[in-house]
């Protein structure tokens, strides 16, 4: 597989009145062409911010991409001109957002909102763009698409709106689709429809997908590889089986333990992670998870563990004690 996106040491901060928020703290990884990568973590772990940083959509001020490289299709997106990045956005690199109601412009027809992208990136005229928009909407499963181009977002249900968002994201045949919690705002049965849709389209169109979510179950379902993020760091990375079955980071272990399992005896107590997520404003040196970690040792307080390969080259973890954990857990 060819490498499509390579991120090196990405760091994003927000300069707020209360202090500097260390949102993303040196993230490096790559995505191959046609791959589905899951990015999982709780709120404030930097998963969305890092995706927006890739697109250069961080509101500045207060946000600032401090350093790093984002190589996409032979270009470093962080150094190209504003004009160049606009050509990439919505074209080869598209994004679908969490809340389909607020992410669509309420004062514009959905037809226009998709046509707009097509005329911009593919240079189509209105007629061609409308025809393609109808095809796209049909493809994402909107019944009677032709007659719905003139409708406004509020005339669609939540699930249908997310389909419209997906059609918009796919409009210019992106090589990479970043889906930022695309199913979080939806009901369970609708969520299943959307997951199924994106999986099907990914297989058909062969694009790569970065699937950002807090739902470990969704990741296990859709992704081939996973990044687990905590406090702006990737703490564990590997194939879904590596991360879910040979878990090496105490945070991932805790996260999985927090979830009740359909295959477990429901009587057992959940092994919740104690404490609160860290305050990113005064993020202290050392492992960010140390305060909540049951495996913590002296070293964790002072040195930030690097992301290192474990038993397998492709399964990496940022923990000083992963080997002991492996022996204990495995």
């Amino acid at each position, binding site marked *: 597989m060819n490498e499509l996106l390579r991120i090196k040491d990405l760091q994003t901060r927000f300069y707020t009145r209360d202090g500097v928020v260390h949102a993303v703290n040196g993230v490096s990884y790559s995505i191959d062409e046609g791959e589905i990568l899951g990015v999982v973590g709780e709120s404030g772990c930097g998963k969305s911010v890092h995706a927006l940083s890739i697109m250069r*959509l961080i509101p500045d001020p207060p946000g600032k991409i401090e350093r790093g490289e984002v190589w996409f299709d032979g270009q470093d997106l962080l150094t190209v001109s504003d004009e160049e990045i606009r050509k*990439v*956005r919505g074209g080869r690199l598209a994004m679908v*957002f969490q809340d389909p109601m607020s992410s669509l412009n309420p*004062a514009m027809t959905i037809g226009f909102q998709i046509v707009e*992208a097509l005329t911009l990136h593919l240079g189509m005229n209105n007629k061609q763009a409308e025809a393609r928009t109808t095809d796209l909407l049909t493809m994402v499963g909107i019944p009677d698409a032709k007659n719905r181009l003139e409708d*406004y977002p*509020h005339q669609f249900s939540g699930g249908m709106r997310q389909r419209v968002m997906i059609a918009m994201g796919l409009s210019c045949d992106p090589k990479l689709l970043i889906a930022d919690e695309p199913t979080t705002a939806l009901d369970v049965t609708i969520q299943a429809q959307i997951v199924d849709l994106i999986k099907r389209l990914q297989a058909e169109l062969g694009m790569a997908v970065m699937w950002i979510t807090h739902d470990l179950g969704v990741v296990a379902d859709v992704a081939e590889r996973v990044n687990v993020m905590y406090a702006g760091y990737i703490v564990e990375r590997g194939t879904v089986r590596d991360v879910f079955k040979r878990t090496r980071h105490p945070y991932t272990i805790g996260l999985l333990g927090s979830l009740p399992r359909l295959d477990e005896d429901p009587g057992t107590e959940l092994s919740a992670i104690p404490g609160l997520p860290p305050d990113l404003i005064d993020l202290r040196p050392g492992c960010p998870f140390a305060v909540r970690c049951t495996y913590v040792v002296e070293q964790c307080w002072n040195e930030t563990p690097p992301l290192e390969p474990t038993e397998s080259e492709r399964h990496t973890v940022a923990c000083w004690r992963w080997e002991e954990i492996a022996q204990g857990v495995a």
Partner: protein
Amino acid sequence: MTQYLLKRLILVIPVVLGVTFFAYSMVLLTGDPASALAGVHATPEMRAALREKLGLDDPLPVQYGRFLVRIAQGDLGTSIISRIPVAIELRLFFPATIELALAAMTIAIVVGVPLGVIAAYKHNSFADLGTTFGSLVGVSMPIFWLALMLLWIFGLKLGWFPIGGRIDRSVDLQTITNLYIVDSILTLNFPALLSSLHHLVLPAVALATIPTAFIARITRSAMLDVLGENYVRTARAKGLEEKSVVSRHALKNAMLPVITVIGLQIGLLMTGAILTETIFAWPGMGRWIVNAIVARNFPVVQTGVMVFALIYVFVNLAVDVSYGWFNPRIRYN
């Protein structure tokens, strides 16, 4: 849409009735209209006769009903001072005020909206702070003082603009609508157009100050809200240029609160017109009413109060209806 319009019209009816009722009963509250009409030298018998003739001894609802019938027939009474039918005076003064108000509103929108957009876009910049502070100064200014200062500086010291009236006495203008700008264009009277525009500048600028400031403030805060919305991020993620993001995606959504304020500004504009017209000797409704109030010229006061209130009511109706264009949700519900 038609149904929505109809609904809104029905809602206006009680307000219109209330307004006319207030205008009518107000006169009774301020004292005996018969004595005012009859003059100071009238005997008690003359006043009593007049009261009976005017039907002032009937119960209030009956009087009000008669009043409504009368204005429905276009009879607004006769001015006590000039003895001219109020309807005729109204046709003379009303267009002057409309001309002034429209000019002021145009200035306010043309200046205020872009200022607010720029301030919001360059949030926390010097331009933003300047607009915020400047617009606060604008709304804090006593309009009669501002008018006097403009008159003093641009009328007297610099001599750029005339200090009163609507048109030079030396210019002939055949009036059709009594809107001088419209009339001079209709009659292709270029000198009259120039002269009336020249006279309009200072009063219009004075009158526009407060609405401009208000509109700039509201536009700024509405734009700030909208620029933080997710669909603006979507527009950027689509690769649109900033220009289209702001002008196409953000502005249309931000206009909703702005047009509400424009509607509400009409009330303030009318308040301003009362004061501005007094200072610039503008022969409009404001001056007409103030003079009438001081002189207790009730038929004129009644008419003026009603006209001002009805303008407000119907402008706000128009604003409500125009929501449909900006907000498709309303159009379809």
